[in-house]
């Protein structure tokens, strides 16, 4: 294998795979990047493919390069990135010796990095383009942002360890839902594309979703093709393909915990509520972070009590004329939900003091957060 590639292109490709490579060292080969050079049809044309996987999530990016001899090798993804990051912005020449060492030359710098045979690297899955749908990157990124915070981090509850994705057949919208049992968030979006090719009701794991978010946040393409087949998911954006193993499990019947009979509702400015909540939470009990919400006519009173430190209380003027209500929440869950809705104002709705609260942005009926209450 012998090629030449622009330093910034190589650095970009290696940076992208850093979060994928396996850090726990359970299989040493997974700490490596798979480097494959293929020759193009024209003279001095070709491509360098950089891939990494931890067997749950995998990514492959293809970059333009001048390939003299095609070939493949694997080498430490971290060390290669550290080397390339320090190189000047000049063409980088890479060749592989017969004992799988990578010879890297750039300007007057020269490195010889130990590699290993590409045959030892796990095969990345292939995916048919028939089962994909093209969706706007921006919308997909927003949906992930609004839901991922609520996904469960406890690995023993695998069916909650990701975001559930379903197609709402009556409105042709895509819905993403996540819950850890203490809070829930969903968002519906009409993506303006044909979603019929997508499998319905899949759970995308948190790590795969974080990589997907990173991919859609890159600013070089407006659309991303997503697809699911069996227990695999794929996202393609330009020359980058992300693979992920989907979670096999049954997502809970989440609709039943979304309060429908809202008896007390108010419209409140998110910034004001968030700031007050942060202040009051400073003296909440360290163990539970419970903050009490007391609603009376025209007023929302937030209070906390820590037996070791003291008490905090703050009143907010609100447009509320319903029944008096007292309910407590974990301040962190409420702040996460308010932060994720990314709205100026929200409808804050309550059924009673023992039922979950519903948070709906005033300008977006298609997204919603639910926070379960705590014992006062």
């Amino acid at each position, binding site marked *: 294998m012998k090629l030449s590639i622009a330093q910034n292109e190589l650095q970009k490709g290696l940076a992208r795979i850093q979060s994928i490579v396996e850090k726990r060292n359970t299989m040493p080969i997974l700490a490596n990047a798979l480097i494959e050079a293929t020759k193009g049809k024209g003279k001095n044309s070709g491509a360098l493919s950089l891939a990494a996987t931890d067997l749950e999530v995998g990514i492959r990016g293809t970059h333009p390069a001048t390939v003299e001899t095609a070939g493949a090798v694997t080498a430490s993804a971290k060390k290669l990135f550290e080397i390339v990051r320090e190189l000047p912005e000049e063409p980088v020449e890479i060749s592989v010796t017969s004992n799988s060492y990578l010879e890297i030359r750039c300007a007057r710098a020269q490195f010889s990095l130990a590699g290993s045979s590409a045959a030892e690297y796990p095969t990345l899955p292939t995916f048919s383009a028939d089962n994909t749908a093209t969706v706007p990157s921006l919308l997909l990124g927003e949906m992930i942002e609004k839901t991922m915070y609520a996904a469960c981090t406890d690995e023993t*509850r695998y069916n909650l360890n990701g975001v559930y994705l379903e197609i709402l057949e009556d409105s042709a919208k895509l819905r993403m839902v996540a819950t850890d049992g203490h809070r829930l968030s969903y968002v519906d979006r009409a993506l303006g594309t044909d979603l019929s090719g997508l499998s319905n009701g899949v759970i995308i794991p948190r790590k795969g979703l974080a990589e997907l978010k990173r991919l859609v946040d890159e600013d070089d393409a407006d659309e991303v093709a997503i697809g699911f087949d069996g227990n695999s998911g794929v996202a393609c954006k330009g020359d980058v393909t992300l693979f992920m193993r989907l979670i096999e499990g049954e997502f809970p019947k989440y609709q039943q915990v979304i309060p429908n009979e809202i008896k007390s509702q108010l419209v409140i400015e998110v910034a004001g509520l968030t700031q007050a909540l942060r202040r009051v939470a400073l003296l909440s009990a360290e163990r539970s972070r419970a903050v009490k919400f007391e609603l009376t006519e025209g007023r929302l009173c937030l209070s906390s009590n820590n037996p070791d430190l003291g008490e905090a209380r703050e009143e907010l003027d609100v447009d509320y004329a319903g029944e008096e209500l007292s309910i407590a929440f974990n301040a962190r869950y409420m702040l996460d939900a308010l932060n994720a809705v990314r709205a100026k104002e929200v409808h804050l709705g309550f059924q009673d003091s023992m039922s979950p609260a519903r948070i709906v942005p005033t300008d977006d009926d298609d997204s919603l957060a639910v926070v379960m209450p705590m*014992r006062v």
Partner: protein
Amino acid sequence: MKPAELEAELASGRIRPAYLVVGEEPLLRDEALEALRQAVLDPGSEDFNFDRLEGESVRPAALFDALGMLPVMADRRLVILREPEAARGGGKALTEALAEAVPALAGGAETVLVVAAAKVDRRSRWFKAFRDPAAEVRCDPPKPGRETLAFVREEAKRQGVLLGKGAAELLAERVGPALLLLRREIEKASLLTEPGGKVTREQVAAGTCDVADEPIWDLTDAIGEGRSADALVVLAKVLGAGAVPPQLLAALATHFRKLLRMRTGGSAPGPPFVVKKLERQAGRYAPRRLRFCLNAIHETDIALKGAGALSADTALERLVIGLSS
């Protein structure tokens, strides 16, 4: 209470605010947890009313958060905390939090806390906090012999496996009181026969490895009772399980000193059945022979320390034959 008593209590509709599931038998612990899970949680809403915390990594705040949440679309929540003393330093912060949290559960009916552990420090404050509102479910392994055999028969019945004459006894003997392993071995044995057929002792003998731990007194008893062949089999198993030769020699020397004391009119401390067994064994030897046996043990000890040409295993085999014949 025993797991069966827990199941009966849950079936009667009684659910306590806290349970302590303690014992070294993982199968019994898992079954008790599953019974509690089924009794406490409503199907359909269980993902929203269940928290499982691992003592090794969970912080006290997460425990209080889990215990403080109200049930959603159900009457109760279930919080399972496993191995609260597993964190570094005995999980002091977590166990202190438990000691504080458990009494507070007594008044409420919405949250059920279950703490599961293989071993606990019974002197600790958190353990004592469980006394009042909670029930302790003991999940100790059955004793080798009759209790293990009873489990084998019960489990075979549950799995619908017919065991032929001597098959249950051999399974219990070869696997010992490891219930999960026994369950798997019964499943495996059922595959060796046609549907509805009986699993024979020969099939168990061919398909089940001998993995049960052999206590050292099985060796001393086989020698003392003159069962040379059994003694050699037990010796091989004990050595195979990792016992070190000096440890075996010490056990043999102690045993033969006891026999000599009893044979010369003295007594040996112990429960009546042990004393009776020792008297029976001492009756097989003349005092002079017992002194000879002690001398042989001493010589083997010297040989094992480098004076002899035989390997440790061979030297021990020769000694066992000499002592038991």
